């Protein structure tokens, strides 16, 4: 199966959007795929907006810049407003609706809404909201299976952070189940 995927992950700084994108890029690298991860960089701080784009392909990645994403993962309202219009027709939009009420979504894209904050708190740590969203994303796109991401968790969270592997796996599974 040919793989071509361009995704933008966006949210507040501190929500772990860069990490979500990196998890995908690491998984792609492990599978021998081509990938480019690009962060927005600038005078950004915790609480400000942050986003990254990831391109994944089994052939050469031409433009590393993602202008018309196949998928958008929006962790907050400003990100939704900024990136929903850029999404390809029939694209995938996954939104953390924790602080979003009554949004008028495009009707030519697939929309998945998750209160990722609530789900994360139920798991005991608000900070895994990002991996819930990531779980939803891999389930909805089928781009990677669970084990591919779990392998990245195990490689990325080492030393003191090794204790975070389990809760992140749980978060991933939670997200996958919501979409299933």
């Amino acid at each position, binding site marked *: 199966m040919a793989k071509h995927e361009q995704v933008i992950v966006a949210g507040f700084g501190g929500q772990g959007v860069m990490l979500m994108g990196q998890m995908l*890029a*690491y998984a792609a690298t492990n599978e*021998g795929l081509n990938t*480019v991860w*690009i962060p927005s*960089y600038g005078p950004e701080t915790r609480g400000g907006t942050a986003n990254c784009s990831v391109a994944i392909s089994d052939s050469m990645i031409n*433009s590393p810049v993602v202008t018309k994403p196949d998928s958008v993962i929006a962790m907050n309202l400003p990100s939704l407003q900024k990136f929903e219009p850029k999404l390809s027709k029939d694209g995938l939009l996954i939104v953390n609706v924790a602080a979003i009420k009554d949004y008028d979504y495009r009707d030519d894209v697939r929309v998945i809404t998750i209160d990722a904050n609530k789900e994360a708190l139920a798991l005991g740590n608000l900070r895994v909201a990002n991996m819930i969203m990531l779980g939803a994303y891999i389930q909805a796109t089928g781009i990677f299976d669970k084990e591919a991401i779990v392998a990245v968790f195990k490689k990325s969270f080492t030393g003191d952070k090794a204790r975070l592997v389990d809760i992140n796996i749980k978060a991933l599974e939670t997200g996958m189940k919501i979409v299933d």
Partner: protein
Amino acid sequence: MAKVLMKGNEAMALAAIKGGCDAFFGYPITPQNEVPEYLSYHMKENNRVFVQAESEVAAINMVYGAAGAGARVLTSSSSPGIALKQEGISYMAGSELPAVIINVMRGGPGLGGIQPSQGDYNQVTRGGGNGDYHVLSFGPETLQETVDLVRHAFDLADYYRNPVMIAVDGLIGQMMEPVDLDNKIASMDLPTKEWASNGKSGERGRLNKIVSLHLDPYDLEKHNLKLKKKYDEMVEKEQRYELINTDDADIVIVAYGTVARVARSTVKTLREEGIKVGILRPISLWPFPEKAFEKLPESVHSLLTVEMSLGQMHQDVRIVNEGKRNLAFYGRAGGVVPEADEIADEVRKLVKGANA
């Protein structure tokens, strides 16, 4: 070795270690800070030298000193910082000292911004220092090509006894892409540095002096001609480029670095529309790859230069073109990366123009 996912700046730093870099001297500036950050611990681990200098000017003069002692030396910076280093670069060229300089370009002039740019093309290819000198310089496209060139640059610097610059835009520094740091690259047969000023070492029995001062004009002219011979050799041997889809092309986009990569997307789209477009991608910025233009087929009626500057490389395209083909230019500046669709629109204009 399997490919590893690395951030551009970190990959360049590791490539320098792999390239045999003995010492790094630098001063922080966005968007290249991960280069010194990475080296600040990994140089020590490898028993090599890392110094964060008090300024760019200090850093480049430390580079001069260490290079003069025979070490393989690296400095990295971004546009305004590279501007500050120009005096030192001219002195190194004059004193025939090898060094590798990484420039992760950002918007200018002045402090400008911190987003990706190619606005230093003139500074890179013409030099901002005084005198008749050149810096061998490259503008790679992917992270793999970048790390391969960083490693090779140390050999090239030693071979020519001249500074070598790797000029990438901020995007290449900031992005992550899988790279093979042990990719097979050309290795050069290099003599020992008999000229190095490292005390009375070996059989020499005398102290080497390293200077760029020649008060006798005839002496200096002789020195200038000696340097020119090296630059002529670079022009002959170091022109690097890639021709992409040019065999049957009517229109060729001239672009380097990230812009060339974006242009590949443009070419894919336009080819599906039946527009015969290709890319001439300079890899060496100085020497400018004039030979590539000789290889373009007669069918090419127009060249479209696309840069993240307002037409700096385009001047070189004009010089090489000598009025032969129709020329057009499209540039974005200030940190804005041109999109594939924007470039496609510019190409379409040339199609219409040719049919009119």
